[in-house]
């Protein structure tokens, strides 16, 4: 098994696929964190919301692809409402209060999911279009998983283009680097904050609806993935795209290969990595701010 070439390829693909999901989930959180100095513990709940609304859309409209496009929009809408009602007010609050309020939100979301969708595990079928596999060393590797990797790479490239090559990207980077100075130069920082927050929510929702056919859909799914997401953000460094990419690859690969090579310590490895990062390099690997 150890010398089996296709076995390692499959593990590598699994690692990549998990990394891409983490990337989709973390990138919004990281930019929001870096840009607004706001930590949103309810970000994982938005991922779960994406999966649940995706489930409902897929059921009502009878098509996974309708859910694929509608769920992120729905999550972004909920995010926009949350921002206007709550998060706008919390931006200048102390980290402790931010943690408390978003922790409260997490509780609220958890029970809303239970109330609306019930306290059990739901599933979405893999879309017909991608319901086949590639032969790989006597096994079939599902095309849907390759689709997730592909999607992650596309979003990564698109975000890089927007952040590095457009005016809007320059404004976001300026906001992360020095919000006050950017505001002094006539930039509407609040508007940028709001749009970034909504896009971040939409990406979390996208991650949810994309993950739904692979992982099951249940109320606690967001909380389960929240901690790895926070780890990605902190390891990578706040507010930088490069940091999120590096962080999600590291965490995704360590988790996947650790599970294969050393199952007893695999999950602990990620936390140890986080603790080491916080102590030795608190600013993260690629912080946006010098």
């Amino acid at each position, binding site marked *: 098994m150890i010398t089996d070439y296709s076995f390692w390829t499959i593990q590598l693909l699994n690692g990549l696929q998990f990394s891409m999901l983490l990337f989709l989930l973390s990138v919004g959180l990281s930019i929001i964190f870096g840009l607004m100095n706001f930590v949103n513990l309810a970000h994982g709940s938005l991922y779960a919301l994406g999966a649940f609304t995706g489930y409902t859309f897929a059921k009502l409209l009878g098509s996974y692809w309708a859910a694929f496009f509608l769920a992120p929009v729905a999550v972004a809408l909920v995010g926009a409402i949350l921002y206007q009602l709550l998060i706008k*007010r919390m931006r200048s*609050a102390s*980290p402790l209060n931010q943690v*408390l309020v978003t*922790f409260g939100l997490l509780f609220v979301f958890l029970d809303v999911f239970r109330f609306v969708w019930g306290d059990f595990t739901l599933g979405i079928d893999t879309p017909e279009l991608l319901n086949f596999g590639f032969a790989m060393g006597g096994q079939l590797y599902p095309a849907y998983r390759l689709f997730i990797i592909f999607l992650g790479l596309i979003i990564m490239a698109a975000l890089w283009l927007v952040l590095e090559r457009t005016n809007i990207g320059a404004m976001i980077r300026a906001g992360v680097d020095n919000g006050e100075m950017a505001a002094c130069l006539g930039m509407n920082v609040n508007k940028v904050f709001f749009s970034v927050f909504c896009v971040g929510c939409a990406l979390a929702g996208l991650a949810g609806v994309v993950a739904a056919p692979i992982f099951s859909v249940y109320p606690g799914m967001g*909380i389960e993935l929240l*901690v790895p997401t926070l780890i990605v953000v902190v390891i990578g460094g706040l507010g930088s795209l490069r940091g999120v990419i590096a962080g999600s690859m590291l965490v995704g690969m360590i988790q996947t290969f650790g599970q294969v090579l050393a199952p007893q310590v695999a*999950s602990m490895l990620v936390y140890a990595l986080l603790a080491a990062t*916080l102590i030795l390099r608190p600013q993260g690997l690629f912080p946006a701010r010098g």
Partner: protein
Amino acid sequence: MIKQETLRTFLAVLLVIIAVIYAVNAGYFGKEILAEILLFAILAMSLDFLAGFGGMVSLGHAALYGTGAYFYAVLTVNYGWNAPSAMAAAIFFCGIAGWIVGAATARVRGIFFIMATLAFGQMAYVYVFENRALGGDDGMSGIPRLDLSLVGIDLVDPTNFDIFLIVVAAFVFIFLMWLLKSGFGRTLVGLHRNEMRMRALGLSLLLHKAAAFAIAGGIAGLAGTLAAQHAMFVSPDYLDWKLSGLVLIIVILGGLGSLIGPVLGAAVVIILKHQISAYTEHWAFFIGVFLIIAVLAGGHGLYDLLVKLNKRARRKATKPEEVVDA
């Protein structure tokens, strides 16, 4: 009007009296709830000492609690230790664990400190959850309670166990009050208020923070050993970060930095939880909404509310005199 210090003592004595009366008169279910409140009260006092006075807001406190519970469980069930020495060993181990976390995170601040403690907590959680020798996610059962039959007390009786917990909680309160008044306690508060000045005075940031974390860890471990004895069962849920969050909520709602406030907070949150659970299974929803409103309202917890009421009472009482003076 009563002075703040007196108010705190008065409140503590009042709570002890209420708890004792309740422990004797309540039904079986009520006694179980009281035990739960007392366990959370001890844990919350420990976190308040750390967060409210030392400025170290930990989101991994449940991990120390759970570590204490598991350490006690393993020593008594697997190694046949007697309860007192297992308790002492568990408390000592949690103290050391706390010292290490405190020393490692001494220079980490704000949200990063919260994340770092969360990481350490999750590390312990995952270790326990995946360790088959510790029963994995099934946990461990058959954990014995302390045997006080030598002095004629049977701790298997729920009333006796409740009173035992009341005594321990009172001792923890007195110990922490004494500690906060000592030179060490004042230095700790000083480090929180003005770190630069304390360091300019030549005090070691690392040693003081680590020592405070060790003490808080030991008390959290003590609460854990008591929880294991109460339920006679331990599970990885004891170390879950959601539990850390709940304890933090209790401390904040009760009043950060007041020591007695978190005890009040534990009573209110646990009673609320059971009251709401009687009507709906969605109690987390209401706790969440309650928490958001409490933070948005900008209050400083229940204890602060009492202090303000007390001040208002004083103003009313002194008003006639002011008129005479004028």
